[in-house]
């Protein structure tokens, strides 16, 4: 089962909507609640990162019998140093984004903690791809 959602950079009023939709689908498929909770955290953080840090992107979801694969592709500034970005507390979020409660530098660490496989690739001034894999059986 495959579907995709567009994500608009800077549109904080809709941030998390795509993740909420996917969570509903996962529930309908009777995937274990504990696994859905972990996927929800990870995809929300990845979705918000596109909103907060990139210009626009797409969330691609592929639900297979044994795993859920979610890929975020964005056009944006890219990530200069992925190891640094993965560190808890590191954030380049702007002041206005911080005032809404983002920018703790906990998003990527949250993703790492909640998926089985995390793959990030990025080209500076071009964009970032984040791939999340969660095994469900």
């Amino acid at each position, binding site marked *: 089962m495959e579907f995709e959602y567009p994500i608009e950079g800077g549109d*904080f009023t809709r941030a998390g909507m795509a993740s909420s939709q996917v969570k509903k689908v996962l529930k309908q498929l009777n995937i274990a609640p504990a696994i859905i*909770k972990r996927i*929800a955290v990870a995809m929300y953080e990845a979705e*918000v990162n596109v909103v907060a840090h990139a210009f626009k992107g797409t969330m691609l979801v592929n639900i297979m019998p044994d795993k859920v694969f979610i890929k975020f592709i964005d056009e944006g500034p890219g990530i200069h140093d992925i190891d640094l970005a993965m560190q808890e507390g590191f954030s380049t979020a702007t002041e206005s984004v911080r005032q809404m*409660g*983002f920018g*703790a530098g906990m*998003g990527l660490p949250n993703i790492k903690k909640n998926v089985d496989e995390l793959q990030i690739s990025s080209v500076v001034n071009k964009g970032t791809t984040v791939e999340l894999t969660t095994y469900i059986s």
Partner: protein
Amino acid sequence: MKLTEVVNKLELEVICGEDLLENTVTGGYCSDLLSDVMGNAQEGQVWLTIQVHNNIIAVASLKELSAILLVKGLKPGKETIETAIQQGIPILRTNETAFEIAGRLYNLIRQS
């Protein structure tokens, strides 16, 4: 404990979600950083925060929190309330600070 009991005992204002007060409260989580809540709050907890923008609803919904409790008399915007109703997240409000209301909520839950 039911949310309705929390609302009554702590004298909270219900901004929206009157129909959801039968939700079960398992505890509370106090934070104004959304990723902190995403990473550490648990299902069924009441979330105490000063954040009022629309984004708090997606967090509460994805984490299946029992309610959002705005402290220090903060008011959510119209959009936040509309999204909360849509997503089925009760928004509560108190004039007390997070420190004060968290203390009272903690005692209430501990005694139950």
